[in-house]
């Protein structure tokens, strides 16, 4: 894996993240009164941009290529970040984004559709990592050099079977597996530390045998450098410190914005902040 950490590349990815943020705002507005998963979507926007813009080895023209990297979105309530990334990478057209709340569309309800880069159907938390272990193990057994990435939320680390999977990733020597944790410090009912404390997450991951890297999850350069530090010695964890609802000043760090409708006025505030460079 070769990561370009140059200033030019970071600037390109920053522009990509800005476009994705704009698309996400449009999606949130189009969702209307039903609302959208704002908080966890906007916390992982730059992570998605760096993954799809730089890290992942993908070929949208040959979406099922056995050699492709697999990205499983475990914290699935972030489609307003994921789908714009699929647009940027050429899996779907931007026009299709509006259909993500439309009955029966191929984007509604966290579907599995690897033809358009949707490698996993999640929603219930904590389950994708085990699948990622299976896929990474398969690569080892078949001598394929693809890598498996699993994007997780910090809240879902409360789920027990995740730790079963972490143990097995080390046991099976899965250096081709990378866990990316969107550490936005919030779950549905409050802060992760108030509801069910994660404590020293870095130490926890290291004690489970993960090469663990910390970074600011909204800083493109730090994210790129984190992926440079991916090791071929044991499974990897990238803990990205983020802000839930990042870029929506009225929503940042507020649990009630986990899922909520935005008004036209709020849309305008967020968009002008974004365009004025106040967000990233």
């Amino acid at each position, binding site marked *: 894996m070769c990561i370009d950490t140059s200033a030019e590349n970071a600037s390109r990815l920053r522009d990509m993240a800005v476009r994705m943020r704009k698309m996400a705002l449009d999606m949130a507005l189009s969702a209307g009164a039903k609302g959208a998963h704002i908080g966890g979507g906007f916390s992982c926007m730059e992570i998605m941009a760096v993954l799809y813009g730089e890290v992942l080895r993908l070929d949208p023209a040959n979406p099922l290529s056995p050699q492709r990297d697999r990205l499983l979105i475990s914290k699935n309530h972030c489609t307003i970040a994921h789908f714009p990334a699929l647009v940027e990478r050429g899996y779907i057209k931007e026009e299709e984004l509006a259909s993500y709340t439309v009955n029966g569309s191929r984007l509604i309800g966290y579907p599995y559709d690897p033809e358009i880069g949707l490698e996993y159907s999640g929603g219930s938390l904590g*389950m994708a990592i*085990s699948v990622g272990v299976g896929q990474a193990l398969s690569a080892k057994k078949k001598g394929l050099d693809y890598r498996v990435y699993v994007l997780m939320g910090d809240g879902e680390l409360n789920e027990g079977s995740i730790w079963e999977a972490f143990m097995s990733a080390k046991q099976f020597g899965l250096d081709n597996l990378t866990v990316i944790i969107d550490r936005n410090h919030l779950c549905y009912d409050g802060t992760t530390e108030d509801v069910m404390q994660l404590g020293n997450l870095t130490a926890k991951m290291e004690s489970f045998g993960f090469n663990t890297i910390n970074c600011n999850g909204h800083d493109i350069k730090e994210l790129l450098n984190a992926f440079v530090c991916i090791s071929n010695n044991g499974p990897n964890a990238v803990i990205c410190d983020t802000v839930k609802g990042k870029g929506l000043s009225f929503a940042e760090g507020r649990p009630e914005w986990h899922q909520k409708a935005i008004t036209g006025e709020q849309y305008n505030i967020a968009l002008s902040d974004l365009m004025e460079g106040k967000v990233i």
Partner: protein
Amino acid sequence: MNITKGKVRSWARLGQRATFFANAMPEIAKENDDLMVLTADLAQLSNLGRFAEQYPDKFLNVGIAEQNMIGVAAGLAMEGYTVFATTYASFIAVRDLEHVRQHLSNLNLNVKLIGTAAGVVAARSGVAHWASEDITFMRALPGMMVMSAADCVEAYEMAYYAAEHKGPVYIRLNGVPDCPAVYDENYVFEPEKLSIIKTGKDVAIIGTGLMVNEALKTADILEENGISCTVANMHTIKPIDKDGLNKLFREHRLIVTMEEHSIIGGMGSAVAEYKATLDNTPRQIFIGFPDSFTKAGTPQYIWEQFGITAPQAAERIKKELGF
């Protein structure tokens, strides 16, 4: 492979689990490059020791982590493996249920779940180890095929069938060593078809798992009383054999279902769900576990507490028929 009289005898001594994992699986592995067998720290108990030695690359022990086992199985299946995952039936069908639903059923993955010690085989281990609702849970999952082996020959045949069949399958194995043989070496296993073991005129007793043997014993008792019985083995509970059932409904005046499982949602319920859509069908007696647990003891003791032994079933049937 050629099944001989001697093999049937020795398998019956070994039981369904050993027949499946120590006899069928190594042979299947020989012919199947993309096969994986997963266990959750029950390799020895499941008689997988020989398989693990012969095929270390096709064997994976995930430790005491049954939920992770299902996800890992899903990931392997997504990459083209045919995966057999096994642990106690109660763990695989209850503890793992959401992983099974979300991954195997939802994504229609090629994973075979082999639930062992179904029913109350693990009698003295208590309720935790009894599988009494696994059929209910598994057959509710879209796309999940549900099978239950009557004896060792059938367990052996099911292993081969499951390896070939594409999509998720749940196989319920019950029986420890000395599993009574229902079939001999000439048995022709027909998936998705009721297996009619004997034909009579009055009562059709449909059994599954160990209850097939108990159904045959029930029929013997009833025939001493002049009641003629058909005995059918429903080895495939889902999809259900509607044609086979139509014939039983047409030709008998009473239907009896016998299962080592709760009567809520089990094989009897599956029969009743179909029967309810038809006009002029016979009444049905459900022989199975009532809506309760019971104290632990030997399997025979528990069967008696639940009223599912052949003499108890025969009494209920005689009463229903006015004998």
